[in-house]
């Protein structure tokens, strides 16, 4: 499965509103496979880091309680044209990183 991240970042009056969508199963480890009856192993993003240029503007810690294909939005002081980079890692060692320009 391709790991995809989509970012929208818009500046208004010096504040950037960032909206991020990540593709991830976010399995809690408590769910059972309907067919096999076996527990589906935990598989969730546990850390997300947002950087504006090279300054960290947000660091999120998650567990399986965040919905599948997670969404997050936050606001920070920034300017148009700056890069916003979102990186995440999951509990199985998977990771992804994606950048977008602030509009």
């Amino acid at each position, binding site marked *: 499965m391709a790991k995809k991240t989509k970012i929208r970042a818009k500046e208004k009056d010096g504040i950037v509103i960032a909206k991020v969508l990540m593709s991830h199963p976010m399995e*809690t480890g408590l769910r059972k496979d309907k067919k096999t009856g076996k527990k589906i192993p935990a598989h969730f993003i546990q850390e997300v880091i947002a950087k504006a240029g090279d300054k960290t*503007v947000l660091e*999120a*810690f*998650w*567990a399986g309680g965040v919905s599948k294909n997670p969404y997050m*939005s936050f606001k920070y002081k920034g300017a148009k044209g700056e890069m916003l980079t979102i990186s995440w890692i999951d*509990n199985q060692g998977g990771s992804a990183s994606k950048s977008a320009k602030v509009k």
Partner: protein
Amino acid sequence: MKRRTLLKTSLAASVVMAVGSVIPGRVMAAYPKAAFENKDAAGALNDMFGTSDYAESGDIKIKAPEIAENGAVVPVQVSSSIANIESISIVVSGNPTPMIASFNMHGSEGFVSTRIKMGKTSDVLAVVKAGGSLHATRQEVKVTIGGCGG
């Protein structure tokens, strides 16, 4: 069993290191594993912050549906006018592991929005850490499970 856990922990630890190196110059904070695995809301706060005492605050607003259409996807938005917010955490007391998410704000505005899972009707607690102490507010979200199969 024990071995497994140990293995997992060290895997997680090495993974965190990996991201640390992917992103140079970041302020490292360890993944608060105990807080996320604690089955009790107060216990989870204790693991995360060393205390579960918080002051009820009118300066925190939660935007969440009164009735969740489907507990699998419940939009929750937390905003606060409190100054110098260090972190915003979302805790659902009715979930098997109540700590859902914790955001270290690094100077960002007092605002986060995300979508969470809720197993049953319960309070959503938004905990804001600022100036070394905890402030919180809560909102009940009723969860009804869908009826149309497949």
